[in-house]
Structures are given as structure tokens and as C-alpha cells.
């Protein structure tokens, strides 16, 4: 039996011969100084990387084993950000000059490239997780044409992924992409007439962002304890805020326009011709720019119920009825800053955000104690998201899963996007060369949003692809368990997602050709089947490689036997090693066991 790189990676402690130079140093270090928290096996390392990255590779497994979890995470936290915007902008510019259409495909090709290849894997995973909380989506016509600004929004999330939560919240709030998606952009002070009790306003500020920044990006609808259990009063949950608070908060988020909208002569409704103007943080046309009675002063300087001179009462720290007073009759930036503090310092933020991040990385049903441990780090570190992700990944509940037994609800359904990227990385997928416009194509025929029900920054609504509290009917709902990813897993998407995986396995390996004259496809990465075809005479060894590379050694004996039987039948029938190889990968990708991350 020829030993593949994967088998080396999983079953030998030492590394392979072909590793990156920096890895040599770490291996050398590892020889004499085995880190205290090193994975106990290559399978454990692969399992960790399944949680923390877009999928384990043999090189990453060896590197992690030499580094230990803590060092590996610290190094990832320090890695420079791989950006999307510069590349997307260059491609968009080149295509436009070439008379070609541009669209979200250009952004998505870059995003999937980063998922597959960016060295800052943990940061990219965190940005993807955050994009499912701080949702903007090209499914909204408000931003569907904003290809470059949306790439910049992705970079915003990546840049802030390991910074302070409050920084992230502030940057998201000022992002014109978010502004256009949830309507703070061009949200202006209302038109009112009369005064005192006869004051009548024919309009009111848009409430969309005021509502969702609290409901989805920070505190949620009900008061929470640190372990995410609801605070009860008389047996009932305590709402965090009410409609009155929404209306007041809507007044805060007024006066926004593009960063470079000219102020002299003033044109609030200016549309930038440059990309930077379209993605730089929005300007707020408050009293810092114009006097209060100047018609270009678009920020609402009135207090509650549009009365001037009274404060705005906004979100308070202990549920409905508790309020924070902020000064409305002041500069826009000061008022918004005060609102950001009111939100970011709310006690719900730590459990509300921590629980959702745990769901994205480790398990759909974290124990209350696990949430509390992470939420405590969230608070004590001053909302440092780098510390939070480290706490999530190194927690005993992440590292030491319960023994698999009937009725097991640990772990999560793998997100459809991650099922694809993990397969690419497992089999060293090689991206096509850039085309004449500098674009590296990754997504073949596209349409993942429909086929998977998931694709980056393509959620159908601000409520993400699935809700954190979704309960699949049957076992999950009956037992009070959550299963977010099942919201997009149904009798239709099981077929459509499988058919997408087919493009990247049966029609996506090195050596595959199509068309006339036959040529390799140039619209997708091509996986390397050699670790499997090398053992085409030995199906048992092929399945071992599948198990190590795709399932961190956790494949059940029954599944192992069934795949081996399939390959033996193919071998007996004279099937080519190549088809045996992609068949094994494809059937595994569709299998119940691969669909779960434990």
C-alpha cells in the first residue's frame, strides 16, 4: 500500500517531507518542546481545524500539532488580514473597461478563494460567522449593485474580527452598505409643523436600523442571564425594550449620507463616482457641519416625541422600563457615540453574541455553563472578540466532546458552504489561473444561495439563512433542542446542494476535461485525487484516507464498510481509479455522518 500524505498526516506524529519553511522551524521546536496543549492525535488536530478553519489540510494538521492550540490561535489572531476589496475592485475595473458585465459573482469568486486559501483562516471563519449576525445581503435591491462596497463590508468584518465588539458595532453602524441595507443612509429628521401640543409631524425617522441593531446585533428581545437563560419576572421573560424605545432610537440614526457628499455647495443626495466614497464610513450631517436651523442639517436634534430640549430615552440596562438618557441637542457623532455605549455596555451583549458564535463554530446546543464561561470572557476582556473566539475554541466543551451514544445532540449540522470548502482543502484543490481580467473563478455555475440556501452576504433577509433558535420538528423540537442549519436542509435543498457538490467532485478534479475540444474547466478549483487513486487497488486504504481527510477519523465502522463495499464493486466492474476516487468523495459529502460536525 502506498502511503498518502493524508495517512502520514493522520497516523504519524512527524510531519511530511514537503512542508513550508516556517513549518520546519515549528517542527524543530516541536521536537524539543512539545506544547502542553498539543492535540493528542492528528485526528484531534483535524477535528479542531474543522471547527476553526474552512477545513483541515495535512500541512495545517502537522503545524497545529507542533504548535498546540493556544499558540496556533495566537498566531492566527496576529496574522494580517486577507482583503477582498482591492482584488474585487481591480477585477470590476478591468471587466468594466473590457465591456463585460459586473455583478456579485466577482465578489463571490474572491470570497470563496479566501475561504479556500487565505492563510488567516480563523479570521476569515470569524468574519463569515459575524456576517451571519451583522447581516447585509445582495438579495436586497438597495445594495445588490454595490459589488465593491460589499467586498469592503466583508473586509470590515475581517478587520474587526478580533478587535473590540464596540469597535465592530460602531464600524457596522457607519458602514454605508449597512446604512443602505437597513435604511440609516438618507434617514433624516422629520418634517414637523406647529409646536407644543399642537406639533404635527408628517413623517418620522426610519425605524429599521434602530430595531435590528438591538434585536439582532447586540441585545436581543428579552433580558438574559450570563448563561443565556431568560431573566424571568412573574414567570415571564422581560422584554429588553419596547416600541417607544425603537421610535426614540430611530431619531438617533438620522443624518447619514456618503462620506464625500459635498457640503459647500451642499448636496446631501450626492452619489460618489469613486469606490472609496461608496464604502468609507458615512458622514452624518449634524450640528458639527451645519447650524441647527440650516436645511442641510439633516440630523434629528429633538428629544423624545420630537420635542426640542428634552433628552432621548433609549435602551436601558435592565429591561423594558429602564432607559438611558442621551442628549439629542448635540452633534450627531456625540449622540450616536452615546447610543453605541448604551447598546454595547448592555448586559445582554455578552451572552447573546457568545451563544451565536459558539453555534457557528462548535455546537448548536452549548451548555449554559459553556455560554457563561465564554460570556464572562467577553465581559472581562472588555469585549475583545479575539479573546472570545479563543475561549470558545479552547473550552473543555469544544475540545472534549461527550462519547457518542444514542440520542447524541452535541455538535452541529455543517453549514453547506463549509461542507464544500472542507472538501476543497482536504484534497488540495488547485484554483484556476486568473483570467484576462485578473479574476480567479471558483463557483462554476454559481447559484449557491438557492442551491445551498446559504452563500456569503446573500441571506434572504436580515434574519440570516437560519435562526439561532430554529428547532427542527421531531426529535429536536420534542427535546427542546436547537438546530439552526436544519432550517435550510429539506427535501429540496438536499438535492440541490448535492448537485452543486457534484460540480466540484465528479466534474472538478485534476484531469477532468469537458467540451469540444476537451479541456479542463476554468471556472472552478480542481481537486487532487492522487491520495485516493494511488490506492485504487485497495479500497480499504481509500476509505481510510477519506476518513482521515474529511471526517477527522470519526467515520463509523458501518459507513466505512459500506463505502468499502461500493468501491470493491466498482473495482470488480473495472471502474477507473479516478471515478472510484470521486465517487468515494461525493457519496461521503452526501452522507449523514459527513454532514455533522462533532
Amino acid at each position, binding site marked *: 500500500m502506498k502511503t498518502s500524505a493524508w495517512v502520514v498526516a493522520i497516523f504519524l506524529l512527524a510531519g511530511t517531507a514537503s512542508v513550508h519553511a516556517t513549518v520546519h522551524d515549528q517542527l524543530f521546536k516541536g521536537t524539543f518542546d512539545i506544547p502542553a496543549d498539543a492535540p493528542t492525535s492528528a485526528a484531534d488536530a483535524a477535528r479542531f481545524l474543522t471547527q476553526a478553519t474552512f477545513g483541515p489540510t495535512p500541512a495545517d494538521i502537522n503545524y497545529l500539532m507542533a504548535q498546540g492550540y493556544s499558540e496556533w490561535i495566537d498566531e492566527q489572531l496576529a496574522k494580517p488580514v486577507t482583503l477582498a476589496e482591492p482584488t474585487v475592485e481591480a477585477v470590476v475595473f478591468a471587466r468594466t473597461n473590457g465591456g463585460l458585465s459586473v455583478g456579485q459573482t466577482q465578489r463571490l469568486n474572491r470570497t470563496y478563494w479566501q475561504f479556500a486559501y487565505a492563510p488567516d483562516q480563523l479570521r476569515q471563519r470569524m468574519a463569515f460567522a459575524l456576517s451571519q449576525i451583522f447581516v447585509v445581503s445582495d438579495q436586497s435591491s438597495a445594495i445588490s449593485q454595490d459589488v465593491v462596497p460589499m467586498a469592503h463590508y466583508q473586509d470590515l468584518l475581517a478587520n474587526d474580527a478580533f478587535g473590540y465588539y464596540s469597535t465592530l458595532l460602531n464600524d457596522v453602524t457607519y458602514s454605508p452598505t449597512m446604512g443602505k441595507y437597513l435604511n440609516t443612509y438618507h*434617514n433624516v429628521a422629520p418634517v414637523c409643523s406647529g409646536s407644543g401640543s399642537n406639533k404635527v409631524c408628517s413623517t418620522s425617522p426610519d425605524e429599521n436600523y434602530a430595531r435590528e441593531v438591538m434585536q439582532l446585533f447586540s441585545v436581543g428581545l428579552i433580558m438574559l442571564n450570563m448563561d443565556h437563560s431568560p431573566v424571568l419576572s412573574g414567570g415571564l421573560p422581560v422584554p429588553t425594550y419596547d416600541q417607544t424605545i425603537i421610535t426614540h432610537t430611530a431619531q438617533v440614526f438620522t443624518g447619514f449620507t456618503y462620506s464625500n457628499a459635498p457640503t459647500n455647495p451642499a448636496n446631501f443626495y450626492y452619489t460618489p463616482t469613486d469606490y472609496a466614497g461608496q464604502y468609507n464610513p458615512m458622514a452624518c450631517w449634524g450640528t458639527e457641519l451645519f447650524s441647527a436651523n440650516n436645511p442641510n442639517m439633516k440630523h434629528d436634534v429633538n428629544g423624545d416625541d420630537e420635542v426640542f430640549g428634552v433628552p432621548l430615552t433609549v435602551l436601558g440596562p435592565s429591561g423594558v422600563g429602564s432607559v438611558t438618557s442621551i442628549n439629542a441637542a448635540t452633534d450627531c457623532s456625540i449622540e450616536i457615540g452615546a447610543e453605541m455605549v448604551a447598546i454595547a455596555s448592555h448586559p445582554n451583549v455578552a451572552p447573546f453574541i457568545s451563544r451565536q458564535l459558539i453555534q457557528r463554530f462548535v455546537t448548536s446546543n452549548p451548555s449554559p455553563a459553556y455560554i457563561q464561561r465564554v460570556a464572562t470572557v467577553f465581559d472581562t476582556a472588555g469585549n475583545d472578540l479575539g479573546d472570545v473566539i479563543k475561549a470558545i475554541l479552547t473550552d473543555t466543551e469544544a475540545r472534549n466532546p461527550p462519547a457518542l451514544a444514542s440520542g447524541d445532540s452535541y455538535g452541529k449540522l455543517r453549514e453547506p458552504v463549509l461542507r464544500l470548502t472542507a472538501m476543497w482543502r482536504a484534497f488540495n484543490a488547485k484554483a484556476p489561473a486568473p483570467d484576462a481580467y485578473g479574476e480567479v473563478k471558483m463557483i462554476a455555475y454559481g447559484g449557491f444561495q438557492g442551491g445551498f440556501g446559504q452563500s456569503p452576504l446573500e441571506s434572504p433577509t436580515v*434574519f440570516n439563512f437560519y435562526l439561532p433558535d430554529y428547532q427542527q*420538528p421531531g426529535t429536536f423540537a420534542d427535546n427542546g433542542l436547537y*438546530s439552526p442549519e436544519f432550517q435550510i436542509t*429539506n*427535501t429540496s*435543498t438536499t438535492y440541490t446542494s448535492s448537485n452543486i457538490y457534484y460540480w466540484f467532485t465528479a466534474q472538478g478534479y485534476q484531469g477532468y476535461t469537458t467540451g469540444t475540444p476537451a479541456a479542463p474547466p476554468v471556472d472552478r478549483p480542481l481537486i487532487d485525487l492522487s491520495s485516493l487513486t494511488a490506492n485504487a487497488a485497495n479500497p480499504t486504504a481509500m476509505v481510510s484516507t477519506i476518513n482521515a481527510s474529511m471526517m477527522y477519523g470519526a467515520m463509523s465502522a458501518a459507513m466505512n464498510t459500506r463505502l468499502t463495499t461500493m468501491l470493491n464493486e466498482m473495482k470488480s466492474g473495472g471502474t477507473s481509479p479516478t*471515478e472510484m476516487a470521486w465517487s468515494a468523495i461525493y*457519496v461521503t459529502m452526501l452522507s449523514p455522518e459527513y454532514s455533522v460536525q462533532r
Partner: protein
Amino acid sequence: MSQSRNSRREFLRNMACLACSGSAAALLPQLRMMGTAMAATTSLPAGYKALVCLYLQGGNDSWNLLVPWDTARFNTYAAARNGVYNSSTNSNGLGLAQPASGNAQIVTDLNNGNSATNKYFLHPNLTNLASLYKSNKLAFAVNVGSLKAPINMADYKAGTSVPPQLFSHADQTGQWHQANTSTTTALGWGGLCADDLQGQDANQTSNPQLSLCISIAGANRFEIGNIVNNPYQLSSSGLTNLNGMCNPCSGGASNSSLRDSALNDLLAATYPSDFAAEYGNVFGDARALFSTLKPNLNTGTYAVSTTFPNTTLGNQLKMVAAMIKLSKAQNYATRQIYFVQLGGFDLHSGFMSSADANNPPGNTSDHAGLLYQVDQAVNAFWSEISAQTLTNNVTLFTMTEFARTLQSNGSGADHAWGGVHFALGGAVNGGRLYTQGMNGLNGKGIDGAFPNQSYGTLTNPNPNAFSRGQFIPGLSVEQYAATFAKWMNVSGTGLTAAFPNLGSFPGGTLGFLPTA
């Protein structure tokens, strides 16, 4: 996957639910599975009926769906909706223009004999719906919203009977789907009705694998019951083959059949992980039903004969019509509940555009464009149902999480509460507005047939609306929903299970459908 395995699994699920619910409605399907004679004792009235829920996602601004036409009330409406910031993008505020006398969009409420106050007009892009209303196939239910109990402004201010999380998309969607305001259930009223209907449907149908609930728009709470606990979901493009497999296998040991067989065995195996087991269930169901449905769905004699618009909703309703045609012909079920959905109604901005003035649909993503899509798709659906001679057997109705503020935020409107809905069907007593219950709800609710759309003033506000024109509902979702359930012949026990608070609302169901 074999049918016997699926049936066995379903039976086991049912047995599990027996312990967890204990209701009579939950019992009946166990009887069905056991094949006892008892099950036939509550058999349904003969004949096929289908209910089609059209969900308008995001909160449809239904105060522009149906507008009072007489000058006094129209002027009130126009004043409430005229708020403008930027005349270059939004010159008319949010208000529609008053059509001239004789315009085809003007309709009369046959429930109101007073000619001074019984005229309304439909949005100008709803030309087909106006025509269906005038042929008495379409009815409006006015100012429907989620309610615990009848409620007025004083109750609201005192916090009495206020539904939780008003104005929140996710929560109000949930409350419409479940037809009550509990925050602890994951069940929907369609699913609970299906539980009851399946129990009554014993041994009448040929394909017990196919859920009574079918969704063309993905997962939804509406169609989740205790027994009928997950809708069959298919896409608006129908059933596509699974690549690399045989669809289905026809004998012989091809590589496709070897993969197919391995996949099916993996899906059918038992797994200790609930996630793996449920994934196997879902994919297994997909494979089993694909084999049953694919050969005939929307092909040959089972193809729909109407041309549907190639839009999101047009394609979904086309698939509903195709499934109805096949299900009826093959006797897959005697009662079915469908779910379709059109998004984009959360129009905080982009509500109107200058493209709307002429030549519909104009801008397809603003409110006028979305209503145009609804009108065209529903009309095609109705033509097809007519061609299938099932007009008396099919009822389509709308749901949405809330209406929107009458008051503009400059380019759109924000979340509100009660709003206008419509029901369409040959069985519907149409050409009428249903507002019963607004009068005499123990002094609660809004007086008069159609809400007064004036804001009032700060010192003398409209007693039935909040300051931006968000109306306290006069009718509850339960009253509206139970009207459909009774028509479907849901039993008294089933009604109690699905609509526990119905008795709190004087008048009960709304009467636009017969109850048997």
C-alpha cells in the same frame, strides 16, 4: 429507501408524540397506522380541498391594497400618507391617487348597504384581483392582526393582553404562523389542522408518505404540527435529478446504481447523532418521494395548461397547481395545505418610484411592482384552477406579519400591526369586506367597518391607532385562520387544539367561507 421503512419511521414518530401531546387529535393518526376500524368513524366529508397560504414576507403595506374611495375618507387617507422628504424621489408621499368615478378598480362592499361609505378601490396594479372581487370570488378581511384577546388603547397602555414583541418581524411572523401569541410553541396552525385532518382522513388516500402540508418556499412554522410535523418541500422549478445517481435505478450494476445504493443505505442507517439521523430522514424522504412524484409531476396529462408569469411567485404557484393536479388525480390526499411566499415587502425605503406611473410593473421591487407580481401570479393560478374545474375546492389567502405605518419615513414606512388580507376561492362569499367583530367587542376594538385613518392630534389622538398610524387590530389572526380551518372540515377538537383562544373573540370565525 423503501416505503415500509418510511412508514415505520413515521409510526415511531407518532408513537413518540403520543406521549408528548396526549390530545385526541394526536391519537387519531396512531389509529390510522394501526389500521383499526375506529379510525373511519370520523371520516371527512367526501371530496378534495386545498388551502394555499400566500405569505407576503416583510410586512405588506396593505393600507395601499384597499383604500376608501368616497371623498371624505379618501382625503383622510391621503393626508395620513402624504409625508415627503425628497420630492425628487417621492413626490406623492405614500398615498395613491383617487381614481375617477367609473374606474375599474373601484369596488363596492356588498356587506354595507350605505352607498356613501361602501366604495373602495384596489391598488391600480391589482386589476385581476379587482375583477375577481367583482365576480364575488374574492373577499377582504379588514384590520386583522395578532391578538391575545380583544384589546383597546387603554388595555395596551396598561399592558393588558398585549401580544409579546409587537413590530418584530420574526416574532410577528411566528404569531401569524401559529395564529396565537404564545412564545413557547414551535407549531403552526396549518400543521395542527393537518394533524386533525390526517386523523380524519384514515385510509382514504393512496400515498400516505406525502405530507398533507407542502411548501414551495422552504421551512416555515405554519406547516408544523405534532404529527404532520414537517412539510414536503420542493422548489418552484419542480423536482430535479440527483447528479451521479440513477433517478431512479432501472436494474443493472452501473456506477450510478452502485453510488445510488450506497447513498440510500447510508441515509437509511440508524445513527446515534440526532443531527445525522435527522439529515438521513430528510434526504431519505426526498429520495422516496422523488421516485413517486417525479414521473408525473407537471408532465403529460398532469401538466398545467395555463401559462404562468416567470416570476418568483408565478413559478411557486405554478408548482402548487401542478401538485394539486397530480394529487387530485392520484388521490394522494383529500386535504392539502400549501405554503408559498413572496419577499421584499419590508419597504422601509424604495416604497415608490417614478417608474410606477405608467406601464406596470415599472420597478419590480417596489410596492407597486410586488403587488403587480401578486396580481399576475394569483390570476394565472386561478385560471389554472378553473381549468382543473377545482374552483370550489381550492382557497388561496394572504398572511403577512404586519401592515405598515400610514406615516411615511421619507421613502417608505415602518412596522405596524393590523392590516387588510384577502381570500380567493369559488367557495368564498366574496365581493365583501369582513369586519365583523369590530363592533361590540365588549367595548374593545375599532368601531365602524373600516378604520378611521386620521392621526388626530397629540392632545386628541385617534383612539384606535398609535401616533404613526399603527392600528390596533379589530380581528384576530385566530378568527381569520379558523375560518379556513372550518371550511377544510377540521373537527371541533382540532379547532380547539389549533385555536385555543377563539372563544375570546365575539363572533368567532368570519363567515366568508361556509363551514361544511
